[in-house]
C-alpha cells in the first residue's frame, strides 16, 4: 500500500467546498450545467447516454440505471420519479452525506432523470431520522424553485417539474422500493408482490422509476462529461466511482470515493489507516450487514466491484465496509445484526418474521451461556428456511450474520459453550 493514496472525487468533489451546499456555491462550481445540457437533448438521448455509460444503481442491487429508465412506457401518464433516500443499511452513511453536503447535486440528477422519463413530479423519500439532511434538502429545493430550476418552465425549457419531500418514520424496510412506495401512499411499509413492477405500476399505480441518492448524484457528471469519460473509471462491468463507507475498528473511519475495483486492502489499510490500535483484522463486511458472506483476512485483496465481490462469495451491496478487530466477539456482532433484522422484519411473511426471531433467541442463548452444539445446526436450518422463501430480500439477507459467523467462526461459538458465556471483552 502506497502512502500517497488519493481519492477519485467525482460525486464527493464538492464535499469540502465552502458554500457548495447553497445554490450560488453549487452553480459557481459547475452546478446545473448538466441539467441545461440535458434539457437541450431529447429525453431518449438522455436515456441512451445513461445506458451507454453503464451506470448501475448504487442502492445495493447494481441494476443498470439507463435500462431501468427505458422500461417506463411512453403512453401511460403521469409517471413518477422517486429518490430512495431511506439509507438504513448498518454501516452505510454515504447517502446522508451526499444530501447534507451537496443536496443540489442530487436534485439536479433527479431532474435530469425526470426529464428523461417524461415525469413532471418527483419525490424524495428521506429517512425520518435524517433531520439535518432533510433541512438541507428543504433549503436546496426552495432555492431551486426560487431560481427557476424547479417549478413551471424550468430554466426556460418549457418543461414543468415539481419536487416533493416525503419523510419516513422509522422503518428500515422502506429502503425496499415497493415498501417505500407504500409509505409514500400512506400505508405500512410492506413490500408489494411483483410483478407488476414499479416501471408500470409504481407510485399511485403509475409508471415509476426509483433510484438511490448516490445513483442520482452520478447522473449530472455523466451528462456533462460523457459516457466514455465515466467508463474510464472502474472496471468494464462496474464503471465509475463509488463511495465506500469505512467504519468499525479502523483508524480513520469515513467515506472514501474511489474507482470500482479498488481493493479492500487499499480501503482498509490505506484510506482508513488500518485496524485500530495496531490490532489484527478478524473480519469485515464488503457491503454492510446485508453482505451475504462476511469476509476474513484472506479476502482482503478482493477488488471492490460487483463481479469480484460476488466471485469471492459475497455481495457488494451498498459498499459499507465494517471492520472487526481480532478482539471482537463475532457471536455478539451476529446477535446485534440479527436483532436488527428481527426488529426490522415487517412481519408480512412467516419465514422472515419467525425465522429472525428464533435466530435472535438462539444467538442470545450463546451470549448468555446456554448455547449448545446442536444450536449451530438449528440456526443453519432456520436460515435455510428463510432464504429463498421470504417475500423480499430483507429475509434473504437476514441470515448472513448467522451463516457467515457459523462458517468462519464456529470455534467462537464453541468457546461460548465451553466457557458457559461470552469469552470476549467486546
Amino acid at each position, binding site marked *: 500500500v502506497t502512502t500517497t493514496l488519493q481519492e477519485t472525487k467525482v460525486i464527493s468533489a464538492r464535499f469540502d467546498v465552502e458554500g457548495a451546499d447553497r445554490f450560488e456555491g453549487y452553480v459557481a462550481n459547475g452546478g446545473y450545467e448538466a441539467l441545461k445540457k440535458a434539457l437541450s437533448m431529447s429525453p431518449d438521448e438522455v436515456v441512451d447516454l445513461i445506458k451507454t455509460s453503464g451506470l448501475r444503481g448504487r442502492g445495493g442491487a447494481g441494476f443498470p440505471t439507463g435500462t431501468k429508465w427505458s422500461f417506463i412506457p411512453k403512453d401511460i401518464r403521469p409517471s413518477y420519479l422517486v429518490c430512495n433516500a431511506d439509507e438504513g443499511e448498518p454501516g452505510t452513511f454515504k447517502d446522508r452525506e451526499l444530501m447534507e453536503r451537496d443536496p443540489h447535486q442530487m436534485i439536479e440528477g433527479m431532474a435530469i432523470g425526470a426529464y428523461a422519463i417524461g415525469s413532471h413530479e418527483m419525490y424524495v423519500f428521506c429517512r425520518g431520522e435524517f433531520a439535518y439532511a432533510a433541512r438541507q434538502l428543504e433549503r436546496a429545493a426552495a432555492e431551486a424553485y426560487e431560481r427557476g430550476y424547479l417549478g413551471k418552465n424550468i430554466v426556460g425549457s418549457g418543461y414543468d417539474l415539481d419536487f416533493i419531500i416525503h419523510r419516513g418514520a422509522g422503518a428500515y424496510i422502506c429502503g425496499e422500493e415497493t415498501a417505500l412506495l407504500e409509505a409514500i401512499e400512506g400505508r405500512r411499509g410492506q413490500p408489494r408482490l411483483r410483478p407488476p413492477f414499479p416501471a408500470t405500476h409504481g407510485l399511485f399505480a403509475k409508471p415509476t422509476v426509483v433510484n438511490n441518492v448516490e445513483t442520482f448524484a452520478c447522473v449530472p457528471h455523466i451528462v456533462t462529461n460523457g459516457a466514455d469519460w465515466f467508463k474510464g473509471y472502474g472496471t468494464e462491468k462496474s464503471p465509475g466511482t463509488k463511495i465506500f463507507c469505512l467504519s468499525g475498528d479502523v483508524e480513520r473511519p469515513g467515506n472514501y470515493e474511489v474507482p470500482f475495483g479498488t481493493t479492500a486492502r487499499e480501503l482498509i489499510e490505506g484510506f482508513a489507516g488500518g485496524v485500530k490500535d495496531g490490532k489484527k483484522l478478524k473480519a469485515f463486511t464488503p457491503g454492510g450487514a446485508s453482505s451475504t458472506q462476511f469476509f476474513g483476512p484472506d479476502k482482503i485483496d478482493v477488488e471492490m466491484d460487483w463481479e469480484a465481490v460476488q466471485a469471492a462469495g459475497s455481495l457488494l451491496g451498498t459498499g459499507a465496509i465494517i471492520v472487526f478487530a481480532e478482539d471482537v466477539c463475532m457471536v455478539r456482532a451476529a446477535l446485534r445484526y440479527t436483532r436488527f433484522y428481527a426488529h426490522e422484519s*415487517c412481519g408480512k411473511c412467516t419465514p422472515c418474521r419467525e425465522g429472525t426471531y428464533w435466530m435472535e433467541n438462539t444467538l442470545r442463548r450463546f451470549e448468555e451461556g446456554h448455547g449448545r452444539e446442536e444450536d449451530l445446526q438449528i440456526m443453519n436450518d432456520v436460515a435455510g428456511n428463510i432464504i429463498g422463501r421470504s417475500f423480499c430480500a430483507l429475509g434473504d439477507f437476514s441470515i448472513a450474520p448467522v451463516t457467515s459467523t457459523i462458517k468462519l467462526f464456529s470455534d467462537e461459538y464453541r468457546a461460548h459453550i465451553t466457557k458457559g458465556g461470552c469469552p470476549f471483552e467486546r
Partner: protein
Amino acid sequence: MDTSLMGKSRTDSEVPPLTEEFHRAAKQIIARYPSAQSRSALLPLLYLAQSEHGFVSPQAMREIGSLLGLSRAEVGAVATFYTMFKRDPQGRWLVSVCTQPSCALAGGRALLERLQETLGIATGETTEDRAISIEEVECLCACDGAPVFQINYENYERMSVDSAAEMIGSLRGGATPPAGARGGVPEEFKPVSRRMAGLTSPMPRARETVE
C-alpha cells in the same frame, strides 16, 4: 414486529382534540399530494398530531381517520408500524442511542447502559419529570462518527460515554442541549415533530399544468 424497542402502548392518556391550527396545517399537507391521493398525507399528519400531544394518541388517530376517510384500524395499523410515531407521551428530549456493531464497539452499548442506570429508566421509558425519554435504535448511518446518538433527531458523534452521559443528565436540570455534530441545536420533541410533518418543505407549483 412489535418488540421492546418500540415501547409499551398506553391507551388511557387523556388528550384534547386536535386544534384548529392542526386542521389548517393539515389542509396544506394534503395539498402537497395529487388530488386523489390524500392518504399520502397520513405519515405527515401523524407527525403533526404528535407535535400537539407529544405522542400519537388513539383519539388523534380517529380524528385523522375521519379527515382522510380512513378507519381507526387503518390509521392505527400505520401509526404502530413506524417507530418514530410514539404511543406514549415523550419527554422534551428523546435520546436515541445506536447499538449496532460500529457504534457498540465504540461505546454505544456502554452509553445506553449508563443512561439507564443514571436516569433510572429502561429504554422506551421517560423520566418522571418528563425531561428525558431514552430509546435504543438501529444504525443511524453516521458510523464514521461512532458512537452516535441523537437528541430529538439531531446527531451527536464521537463523544465519550462520560461526557455524553453528563450532557444528557444535565437536561433534567432544565439545560438545553449544545449544538450537535452538524451544528444544529435541537428543539424540543413537540416542535421537532411539527418540523417532521414537512410544513417548511416547498409546495408543488407546476402541478395544475400537468394533464
